[in-house]
């Protein structure tokens, strides 16, 4: 049987620290009603993804059934149940990017990293995502790596770009 969350946190001070940050965030909210999505956003910032423990915590802290929390987490693309790599590569396949060859860029990234969208490389260096429009259509096709956006990308350029991220 799994230990309950509190006992597990006692054994893992690092994890406890992260949960304290989340707890403090929830404590500062004006109202808890309707705050689940905001809390999950904050949690993903802190933990990098949303493991079972976080869902459990959010459910008890916001007084919501776990099924509700799980339902929300799995509904929205933005939330990840799996750990992400050190860098997240998001290839835009919105219309403008698609029309200007975003697909070729995506295929090149897939080939280079050996993973598909939603996966992470074995060395934990990169995660790959497809996004639908980042609103920089003027510079299509666009690739976003972590928080940096790169416009007018090509299959060749994107490989050089990836090499910049260790």
């Amino acid at each position, binding site marked *: 049987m799994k230990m309950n969350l509190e006992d597990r946190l006692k054994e893992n001070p690092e994890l406890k620290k992260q949960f304290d940050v989340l707890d403090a965030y929830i404590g500062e909210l*004006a109202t808890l*009603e*309707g*705050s*689940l*999505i*905001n809390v*999950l*956003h904050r949690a993903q910032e802190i933990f990098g993804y949303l493991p079972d423990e976080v869902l459990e915590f959010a459910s008890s802290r916001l007084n919501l059934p776990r099924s*509700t929390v799980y*339902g*929300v987490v799995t*509904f*929205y*693309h*933005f*939330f990840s149940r799996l750990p992400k790599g050190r860098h997240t590569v998001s290839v835009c*396949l*919105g*219309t*403008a990017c*698609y*029309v*200007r060859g975003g697909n070729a860029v995506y295929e090149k990234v897939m080939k280079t990293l050996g993973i598909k969208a939603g996966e992470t490389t074995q060395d934990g260096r990169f995660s790959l995502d497809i*996004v*639908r*429009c*980042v*609103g*920089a*259509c*003027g*510079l*299509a096709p*666009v690739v976003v790596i972590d*928080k940096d*956006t*790169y*416009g007018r990308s090509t299959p060749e350029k994107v490989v050089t770009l990836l090499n910049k991220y260790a």
Partner: protein
Amino acid sequence: MIRNQLLVCAGGACITSGEKSVKDVLVDELKKHGIEDEVQVIETGCMGACDLGPIVVVYPEGTFYQKVTVKNADLIVSEHLVKGRTVGELLYTEPTSEKKARTSGDIPFYTRQVKRVLRNCGAIDPLSIEEYIARDGYFALGKALEMTPDDIIQVLLDSGLRGRGGAGFPTGLKWKAAREANGSPKYVVCNGDEGDPGAFMDRSVLEGDPHSIIEAMAIAGHAIGAEKGYMYVRAEYPLAMERFEYAIGKAREYGFLGQSILGTGFNFDIEIRIGAGAFVCGEETALLRSIEGKRGTPSIKPPFPAQAGLWNKPTLINNVETYANIPQIITNGAEWFRSVGSTKSPGTKVFALAGNVQNTGLVEVPMGTTLRELIFDIGGGIPGGKKFKAAQTGGPSGGVITGDYLDMPIDFDTVKDIGTIMGSGGLIVLDEDSCMVDVAKFYLGFTVDESCGKCTPCREGTRQMYQMMERICDGKGRDGDIEKLSRLANVIEDTSLCGLGQSAPNPVLSTIRFYEDEYRAHIYEKKCPSHVCKHLLIYSIMPDKCVGCTACARQCPVDAITGEVKKTHMIDQSKCSKCGSCYEVCRFGAIRKE
């Protein structure tokens, strides 16, 4: 004493093109020349000409410098500001006349626009509430608070403003319904879930002129009797969130939000809610569920949000661009608003011009402007000497406008008549190389991904359609597929629960309507006339051009190419996987794709 101002465009596209480093160079250079106290550097919202970024405009002259890089940004300081000489190499050159443009007033991209919604974007510092006020900001709120709610709604009804989110429902009627609804409290919501891939006007307004939305939401609060507003922004727009949050803080500080606004006893405040990447949340009932922190699934209307919205209370929900029109309508009146645009669709519309077009970016034009003016006069035409094929509007819910309709005035009703929708204003230009079957498949794939799964026609029906489209593009199309697609499309339109499902078949229906011959070529001749659909291509080597360099044979991943050195090579069609690597690697243009 400030003698010059440098306006640096900090819109999404310019940031992507390196705006931050350019700004740093400018600031450093100003210090180096000891004029940092005389010249102010201001980061503005999007200036619209995304292709020309990063853009720096020097005021008071209004000199428009484009494609500024870290290597030449110093010239703006050392030449323009220190020596008073215009930096010729950074000016925009008009491609046909080859004339240099000094200010944005000399560039056709700008001169044909009518800036109302975007009037402050790129003109003021979005972080400065003072600059917004200096441009008559919050004047409308003051005026509205002296008017009765019924008078405000009457002005909106008279103005003829229609919702800019896509469907074009009269805004005044929405406000009236929310005002007349029983229940309390009431809520004001702004739909900033701009999910249509290819549209980015809402993002630009939120980033470039956030106070205009705050002001409009407060006016709405007074008009319908609400004290609380929610701004729903999609998670993909962090900068918009950041600037809007900052603007809310400033508005509170100045007494435009909070308790007893402008001493009138009217209370109103706004809270930001962040989306989490679900296209369906752009549908208003789904969006309201998402604000409540739930799965964003839509519900049947009626009841409309005006009667039972957020937490089952009367809720007014409008799109960002709609709100951005409100303060100016209140300030200048309904007549002023109607002075541009068409009779049934007054005012302006912001389009996001993207795809195969020379000048990409945001353009605001009167309703009723023709596609020709938009794409050729403002957009500068199709790059690479290619021919125009079609324009796609309304994203995954819309359809195509063909070359036959280039001179048709575009407004909510005219586009509907030819089977597409205005949508939020994404305008994707397609050139002759685009395969319309592939484009329709692309949009359908988007809807399949984004269907929330609540109702069967949308969840299962779009998937069935997608599989058929995939088969057609893979060369496995069968006789009767076009009829089957149309039949299924009609069922999905009739029986889906929300706008997403009801409009999902549009891209397919619209392309069948205008490009049935392309569908037929795919199905019956197993050919893709535009050479896009991979599985329908045949690669062959032209003997007269092949020099036998062996490059293609070495590149071929399935060893389908044979031939001796310096002799003509051959492709074994039974082995060819149509990957196209021979085509890419051949330096002699000897590979034919057909």
